[in-house]
C-alpha cells in the first residue's frame, strides 16, 4: 500500500495498458446491452455499477488520503435526495446537470463533515463521520420537504431522458450507469496520478512529514472529502434512479456504509481496480452463498440462518483479507496475472 507506481504517467504509451480498457468498452457497450438478460442487468450489473462508483469515491478518501469514513451511505443519500429535488423543482433540468448538481450538493455536505478532519485524526475522525451518517438520515426522515412530503419519506425515480432519448428501460438505465461510472472513474484515475493525488498519498502515509515538506495538508484533506463525496453522491443517484427506483432514507443506513468500506478492504485499498473487484464480489457473494446453502442443506437452510451465515462468512473474509492479503483482490489479481505471464513466456 505504501509503494505506488508514481512514474506511470511519464512512461511512453504502453499498449498493454490500453488493451484492458478497450476490451471493457467493447464488452460494456457492445456485448452486454446486446446479449445480457434483464435479470443480469437489473439484479447484478446495476447494483454492481452503483456500488463500484461509491467504492471508488470512498477509496479516494480512505485508500488514497487515509481518512477513514464510516458515513459513505449518508453522502449517497444526499446525492439521491438532491437529484430528486433538483429534478422536481427545476423544470426541464437535463439529467446530466441534475447528476452534477446532486454531486455538488453531496460534496458540500462532505466538506462540512470533513471540517473536523482539520483537527481530528484517526479514530476520532472516523467517529465524527458517524455523525454525518446519523444526522443526514434523521434530517431526510424528519423534514418532509426532502421527499416532497411523502408520508414515509420515500422518493421515486423520475423519467430518465438524455437528449430526448428515454432511458427508463433496463438497457437504458444500464447505459446511463456505465457511462457515468466510466467517465468518473477515468477522471479519478487521472487525479490519483496527478500532483493532487500524490498529496493525498503523502497525507495518508505521514501527515506530519507531508506538512514538513510543504503539502497543504488542510486543503488536501478537504479536497479529498469534497471529491470523494461528489463521487459517492453521484453513486447514490445511480443507486436510487437506476437500480432501486424507489428509496427511503433508511435504505442508506450504517450497514450500507460498512458494505462500501468492506468493498474497498476486500478489493484493495488505494486501488481503483480493487473497487470494482470488491463490488463484484459483494454483489455476487450473497447469491452464490444462498445457492450453495440450498444445494448443500436443502430446506434446512432458512433465510434467517442464511442471513446469519452470510454475516459470519463476510466478517471472516474481512479478517482473512486483512491478515493474508492487505492489498485485497487487486493484489491477488496481479499475482495471478504475473504467474500466468511467466508461464507463457
Amino acid at each position, binding site marked *: 500500500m505504501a509503494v505506488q507506481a508514481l512514474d506511470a504517467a511519464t512512461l511512453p504509451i504502453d499498449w498493454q495498458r490500453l488493451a484492458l480498457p478497450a476490451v471493457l468498452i467493447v464488452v460494456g457497450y457492445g456485448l452486454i446491452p446486446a446479449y445480457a438478460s434483464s435479470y443480469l442487468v437489473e439484479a447484478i450489473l446495476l447494483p454492481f455499477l452503483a456500488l463500484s462508483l461509491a467504492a471508488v469515491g470512498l477509496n479516494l478518501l480512505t485508500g488514497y488520503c487515509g481518512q477513514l469514513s464510516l458515513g459513505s451511505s449518508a453522502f449517497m443519500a444526499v446525492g439521491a435526495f438532491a437529484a430528486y429535488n433538483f429534478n422536481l423543482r427545476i423544470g426541464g433540468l437535463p439529467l446530466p446537470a441534475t447528476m452534477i448538481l446532486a454531486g455538488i450538493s453531496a460534496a458540500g455536505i462532505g466538506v462540512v463533515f470533513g471540517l473536523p478532519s482539520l*483537527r481530528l485524526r484517526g479514530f476520532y475522525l472516523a467517529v465524527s463521520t458517524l455523525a454525518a451518517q446519523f444526522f443526514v438520515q434523521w434530517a431526510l426522515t424528519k423534514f418532509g420537504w426532502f421527499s416532497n412530503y411523502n408520508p414515509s419519506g420515500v422518493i421515486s425515480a423520475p423519467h430518465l431522458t438524455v437528449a430526448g432519448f428515454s432511458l427508463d428501460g433496463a438497457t437504458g438505465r444500464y447505459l446511463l450507469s456505465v457511462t457515468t461510472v466510466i467517465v468518473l472513474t477515468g477522471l479519478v484515475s487521472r487525479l490519483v496520478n496527478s500532483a493532487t493525488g500524490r498529496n493525498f498519498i503523502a497525507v495518508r502515509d505521514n501527515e506530519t512529514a507531508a506538512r514538513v515538506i510543504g503539502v497543504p495538508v488542510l486543503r488536501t484533506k478537504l479536497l479529498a472529502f469534497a471529491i470523494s463525496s461528489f463521487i459517492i453522491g453521484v453513486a447514490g443517484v445511480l443507486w436510487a434512479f437506476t437500480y432501486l427506483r424507489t428509496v427511503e432514507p433508511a435504505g442508506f443506513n450504517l450497514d450500507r456504509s460498512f458494505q462500501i468500506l468492506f468493498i474497498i478492504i476486500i478489493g484493495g485499498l488505494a486501488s481503483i481496480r480493487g473497487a470494482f473487484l470488491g463490488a463484484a464480489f459483494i454483489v455476487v457473494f450473497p447469491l452464490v452463498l444462498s445457492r450453495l446453502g440450498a444445494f448443500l442443506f436443502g430446506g434446512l437452510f432458512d433465510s434467517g440462518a442464511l442471513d446469519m451465515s452470510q*454475516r459470519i462468512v463476510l466478517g*471472516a473474509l474481512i479478517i482473512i483479507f486483512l491478515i493474508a492479503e492487505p492489498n485485497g483482490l487487486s493484489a491477488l489479481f496481479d499475482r495471478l496475472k504475473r504467474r500466468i505471464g511467466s508461464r507463457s513466456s
Partner: protein
Amino acid sequence: MSYYDFLFVIEVLVGGLLSGVMYSLVAIGFVLIYKTSGVLNFAQGSMVLFAALTFVSLVERGIPFVLSLLITFAAMVVLGFTIERTVLRPLVNRSPMTLFMATLGLSYIIEGAAQLVWGTQVHGLDLGIDDTPFEVGGILISSFDLLASGIAAAMVAGLSAFFYWTRIGLAFRAVADDQFAALAVGLRLPRIWGTVWTAAGFVALVAGLLWGARLGVQFSLSLIVLKALPVLVLGGFDSILGAIVGGLIIGASEKLAEVYLGPFVGGGIEGWFAYALALVVLLVRPSGLFGQKTVERV
C-alpha cells in the same frame, strides 16, 4: 421558572445521568482494550449481545442463575483468547486502522454466530430487580437505574483495584505505557492481551445483563456500541475516568436536549445529538477531555 419546572429539570438531569452510567458501562470495555493494545474494538457491542444472549438462553434452558453466569463468563474467556490468537496475533504491528477494520469484521462474526446458535427472537431478561421509581424530595428516580449505577461503580472500583494492586494489573499498565519496553522486560504480550479481552468480555457481560434487562435481549443490543462511541470520543479513548465522565455528560445533555431542544426540530434527535456534542468538544480538545495527547514525530 417555577419550583415545579426546576424540579422537572432536576428529574430529567438525574434520569440522564443515570442512563449515562449505562453508556459508560459499555464504554469502559472499549477503554480497557484500547489502553493496552491500541485497538478500537468495534466488536464490543457484539460481545455485549453475545454475552447477554448466551446467558439468557442458558437460563431459559433451566440452568441456575449463578451457573449460567459462570458458563457465560467461561465462554467470554474462550472468546477473548480465541480473538487474541486468531485476529490480534497475525495482525501484530499493523496500523490501528487495519486493526479497527478487523474488529468490524469480528463484530459481524460474533453477531452472526450468536444469533445462529441462539436464534433471533427477543428474550426477556428478569434479573429480579424491582423497577418501580421512588420519590426523593419531589423527584422520581428509577431504582433499576440506581442499582445499575451501583453495579457500575463497584465494577470500576474492582477494575481499578485490579489494575493497581495485582501483578497482572501492573503488567497491563506496563503494556499500556510502552509495548516494546514491556516486551523487553519479558512480559508476555499474547497472554496479557488475551486477559484484557477477557476483562472486556466480563464488562460486556455486566453491560449485557443490565441493558438486556432494560431493552430485552435482541439484536439491537449490539447497536449500543453506537451509543458508546460518542462517550469515548468525549472522554478520550484511553481513560476510564473519561468513559465515566463522558457517559454522564452525554446521558444528561442528551436527555435535556431531547426535552428542551427536541420539540423545536421535530424530536428524535437522540440518534445524533451525542455525536454533535462530542464533535464540539473535540474541536476544542482533539483528544477528548481526558485522552492522552500524542506527540508526532516524522
